[in-house]
């Protein structure tokens, strides 16, 4: 990883916080994600706001296989202020049927009611003998600031890179959420659709 990437990651870690990979205490979340590399369904439960445990079923489009992961996400650091929240998370997962396949990484976010930034880094050791990394950086702005229960809208830009496919793309995203439901989608001519659906209960 280049020095500029490290600087950007450190900057985001220090000054900034993403969508919530851990719910409120006692919360359950179901997510569907689809991009050029994976389709996944992920169900997690948060006993406390500090961590979540879950199961993810991933259809890998590159290897044309399907894998199931036990996942664990831990909130390493959070800073609350009157106008912002910053989070740093450790994420991990291990294949249900083969401990040689696993991933780990960090992701973080910082947001106010108007601004959002986030980053993620994930290192995957798979059972095909090819390790790879996923990285992304995301910035967003809310065109209007909604009240509790309103439809909230975010206009975002995301840069992501996958070392296995050796693709890097930067593309716009739109994120909407209302109540317990979130929909996010982006499109790039290189990596095509990036879709994220989430429901929390």
């Amino acid at each position, binding site marked *: 990883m280049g020095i500029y990437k490290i600087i950007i990651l450190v900057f985001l870690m220090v000054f900034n916080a993403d969508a919530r990979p851990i719910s*409120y*205490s006692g919360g359950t979340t179901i997510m569907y994600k689809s991009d050029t590399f994976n389709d996944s369904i992920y169900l997690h439960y948060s006993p406390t706001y500090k961590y979540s445990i879950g199961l993810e079923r991933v259809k890998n489009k590159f290897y044309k296989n399907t894998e199931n992961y036990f996942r664990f996400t831990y909130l390493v650091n959070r800073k*609350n202020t009157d106008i*912002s929240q910053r989070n740093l998370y450790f994420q991990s997962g291990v294949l249900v049927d083969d401990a040689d396949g696993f991933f780990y990484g960090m992701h973080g976010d910082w947001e106010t009611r108007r601004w959002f930034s986030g980053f993620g880094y994930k290192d995957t050791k798979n059972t095909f003998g090819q390790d790879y990394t996923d990285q992304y950086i995301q910035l967003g702005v809310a065109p209007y600031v909604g009240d509790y229960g309103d439809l*909230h809208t975010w206009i975002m830009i995301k840069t992501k890179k996958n070392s296995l496919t050796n693709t890097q793309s930067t593309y716009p995203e739109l994120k909407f959420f209302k109540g317990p439901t979130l929909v996010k989608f982006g499109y790039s001519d290189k990596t095509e659709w990036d879709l994220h659906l989430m429901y929390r209960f």
Partner: protein
Amino acid sequence: MKKILLTLLLASPLAWAEQDHANMHDHSHEGHLHDTMVDGKNLDVSAERFDAFMNELTNVNVAVVSVKGMVCDFCARGIAKTFEKDKTVQKIDVDLDNGKVLIAYSKSKDINYSEIEKKILSNGQSMSDLQILEI
């Protein structure tokens, strides 16, 4: 004449409520229900919002909780869910703009700072202030 004015004032539910707010100044309604408490702290709850919140509520005390880190709807949803489990809670309102949560408790409830703080913390936010309006 003064007696009539005083009677009218007391007949108004809002004014009546203020009479019970021993710890508050009963003035200033310029967009806010009460701008300043006796302790000098700002309440920062809009009169319109408070009136809507209090609509059809009787026999309650209101906790106005200042929350740090309540920057999105998802964050606030957990707080609302936690307090809704308390049977003495009659109503909850989240004011994201001002980082406040209004909680109407039954009169019988002894509103406890550390209990509320603990619930806020259990959702990953932090409480910076609590003001109790005895209505």
